[in-house]
């Protein structure tokens, strides 16, 4: 692992933000924010509260995060994009995405930040399968993730092992792209493909994830079949789609 200090030195004066999507994560969101600040106090944090009915927003605000409260549940795609819009309009250089449920460990931020800081990648995704250690998710979900990994790898012609990971870092280019266009519902798979189609460089690095500490997964068994079909359809149709260029800076309001 690149030492924390080395990454922190490199990150220097870059304006950086952590986007934390959260839906009813009152038990964990405060700790996630504290952990990010413990890693690097220079990180601004924006918690996107996707229509929580618990104290998520209040706790996040008390912990020192910017809080964007969506008036109703938009789903993870819409929520995350809200965060990227915020990052884009406020002129951030680097954004990391960390789930509010505590499954991503901010101590591992250097792993996903390094390739972006060194200019090797525009988007860096933390993969829990590349290393094979840490929490690996349940059997059925792993099966689905495998299938997507195979399909996505074929489409982007690059080995991708974890297409559902929401632990990622992007530079300004990536922020601009995601602010302009982000997939709905179950977005990580499509976002990965979108990036490559827009000629952004993708890197995947091994990370370890923790088992979610609180809340409940947004994906149930029956829904996952629907999502699989939907995402596979989206990938298939996407093959025939021409891609728009990312948002130009002058579109910034």
């Amino acid at each position: 692992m690149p030492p924390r200090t080395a990454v922190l030195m490199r990150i220097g004066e870059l304006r950086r933000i952590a986007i934390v999507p959260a839906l009813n994560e009152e038990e964990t969101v405060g700790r996630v924010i504290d952990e990010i600040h413990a890693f690097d106090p220079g990180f601004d944090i924006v918690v996107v509260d996707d229509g929580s009915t618990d104290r998520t927003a209040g706790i996040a605000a008390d912990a020192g995060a910017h809080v964007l409260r969506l008036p109703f549940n938009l789903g993870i795609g819409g929520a995350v994009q809200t965060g990227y819009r915020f990052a884009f309009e406020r002129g951030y250089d680097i954004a990391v995405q960390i789930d509010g449920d505590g499954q991503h460990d901010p101590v591992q931020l250097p792993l996903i930040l390094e390739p972006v800081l060194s200019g090797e990648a525009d988007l860096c995704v933390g993969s829990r399968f590349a290393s094979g250690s840490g929490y690996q998710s349940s059997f059925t979900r792993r099966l689905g993730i495998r299938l997507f990994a195979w399909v996505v790898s074929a489409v982007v012609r690059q080995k991708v092992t974890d297409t559902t990971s929401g632990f990622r870092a992007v530079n300004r280019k990536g922020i601009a792209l995601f602010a302009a266009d982000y997939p709905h519902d179950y977005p990580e798979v499509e976002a990965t493909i979108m990036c490559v189609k827009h000629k952004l460089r993708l890197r995947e690095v091994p990370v370890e994830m923790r088992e979610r500490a609180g809340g409940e997964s947004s994906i149930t068994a029956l829904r996952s079949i629907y999502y699989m079909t939907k995402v596979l359809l989206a990938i298939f149709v996407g093959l025939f789609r021409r891609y728009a260029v990312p948002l130009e800076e002058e579109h910034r309001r």
Partner: protein
Amino acid sequence: MTPLPVSIAAAVASFLLLLVVFELIRSRRLRERYALLWLLTGVVLLGLSVWRDGLNTIASWFGVETYPPAILGAVGALFILAVLLHYSTVISRLSDQNTILAQRLALLEQQQREGDHDQGTVTTTGGLTT
């Protein structure tokens, strides 16, 4: 037995449906989540038009001996009913959300007009504090 021209016409029509839906998704005028039911409709109708023996068999289950293509019409109608019902739920959800948005906007405007004088405890960009 199903007349061949009927099968051909039905197959062409359902194939066209699939093509149009595909193009709508590709050009981003239709979201995948609202296209799935249409695609299912197209695939089932296409299947029933091409698989002529199957259509006859299904027709005989329902005692339709004289004109099996009637089943095509019935299945098509059933699917259209399902799509319409699905859209009704979608519209209901949209109108609920629209109400919430309008209310939130009114609250924010009020806050902006009056909040200029006394900065309240508003830390979120959302409206109501819990």
